[in-house]
């Protein structure tokens, strides 16, 4: 497959990811990942120090489905939604059929009453499996610029 087609496919997946979360179709969120996979929300300070403790971690689609089910049925918090704004995608190269790409983001949090605030900024460090018909995240590291989380993190970033 040529380079341009891969870039388009990667861009589509990254766009679909933001749309899936922001439009509250969380049940479809795990489908964007391979199984097993690695999804980790981690602060830059932990990541750069080589530490692996994050804020949210999934190693399988099952763990992601459990996260969604728990948000929907078990956890109690004020309703809110996100708006992701994704910056330009930087293509870092191929590792076999896996595309290594970086992008940066800001996430705005909108509470039920309309209160709107900047909730998170950071980078996505992705390894995307291009071998199947549909591209899937093999790994998505969500590296947060700040190690502060306001109030709580319920919905994945």
């Amino acid at each position: 497959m040529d380079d341009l087609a891969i870039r388009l496919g990667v861009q589509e997946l990254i766009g679909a990811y933001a749309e899936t979360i922001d439009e509250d179709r969380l049940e479809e969120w795990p489908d964007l990942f391979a199984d097993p996979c690695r999804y980790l929300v981690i602060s830059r300070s932990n990541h750069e120090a080589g530490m692996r403790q994050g804020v949210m971690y999934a190693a399988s689609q099952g763990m992601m489905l459990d996260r969604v089910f728990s948000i929907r049925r078990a956890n109690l918090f004020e309703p809110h939604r996100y708006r992701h704004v994704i910056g330009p995608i930087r293509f870092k190269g191929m590792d076999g059929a896996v595309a290594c790409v970086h992008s940066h983001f800001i996430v705005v949090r909108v509470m039920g009453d309309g209160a709107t605030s900047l909730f998170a900024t950071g980078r996505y460090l992705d390894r995307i499996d291009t071998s199947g018909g549909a591209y899937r995240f093999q790994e998505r590291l969500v590296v947060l610029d700040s190690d502060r989380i306001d109030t709580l993190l319920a919905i994945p970033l």
Partner: protein
Amino acid sequence: MSQSGLTADHGVSWPSNGISEVPFRVYTDQAQYDREQERLFQGPTWNYLCLAVELTKPGDFVSTTIGEAAVIVVRDQAGAINAFVNRCVHRGNLLCLERQGNVKEFGCIYHGWIYNLTGQLTGVAFEHGVQRQGGMPSEFRKEDHTLRRLRVAELGGLVFGTFSDSTPDLESWLGEDVTRGLKRVMNRTPTLLGRNTQILPNNWKLYFENVKDTYHASILHLFLTTFRINRLSMPGGIFINRDGGNHYSFAKLDYAAEDADYKDAGLRSDSEFRLQDGSVVESVDEYGDGVSVQILTIMPGMVLQQVRNTIAVRVIRPRGVDRTELEWIHLGFDTDDEAMTERRLRQGNLIGPAGYIAMEDGCIGGFVQRALQYNDDGAGIVMMGGHEAESQSFRASEAAIRGFWKHYRALMGD
């Protein structure tokens, strides 16, 4: 009369001499907050500073805060751990701006005053002036100036500091039970897995009470019941020290029965309510005593938790009447293999700002704070399990919260 003369002595008035009714104004009153900084955080209490393993070499330092006050912790050339206020004696500038690092000495960037690793002033830029003009007066002696020192104590690899000369030694302060609870969890050399900081939109005490509140756990946190984990009866109890402010609660778990129970899940019709991937709760009895949850608090602002195989120190740092920083310091131990580390990381989903059984604690204090906004007359009710603050063999109790208020009122002089 005020003890220090710095703040008004008349605090929030309490409805009685008791500890089972708490005036709501303690969460909203600025004067009360100011008094807490002086009498609790800078009073005769032991406060978490850092892990001893963060200070392995001479010159290794950590800058942190006790309450709102900035402090530096450093290992000196002799191997001792020193702590002092992070404030130059000259003009009061922050001496140390980095969170962590290694230095030979501390130099103030403002006017170049230098301190050694014990906090002694050793250098003053242009002390004797420039070309014999200016300079410090002849009676000025560097030896007379040292950074305000804190007393330091270490237990189980955790380093504590106190501003007060009258604080009892650390183990006496903790009491026998809480000392035992701390040593139980910190029985190996800890390793740092990472940190997270959560900003809570509420008074610091609402979070500290929440941690001591064994009553809310199965009501506010629905994760375990939703996924039908832990339906087996769990014996446990609460230990509260004599002063009241330090405690630990614990619950046991039949690890083998839970494991077998979960393995049957696929055969059941209710598998919709089962975890698709059970690794988030797959635990080992690493202490060999069947205790799966131990929550320990140290007055005024530290928590040590074992929730299954997640080990964390939580530090509560007030940042105003209605704002609190909660730092999560996630630990492993030097004996962990890769499987154990991965287990701790997966179970890490249970705790922290996104924790399945913790995230509600991030917002519940904010809901209380909002309710109290200009609506803070009257008092809350803390009577579950009686009016006293004694250790108990059951957990449907607010005894540890009453313990907090008992100690709080004694320290505050309220």
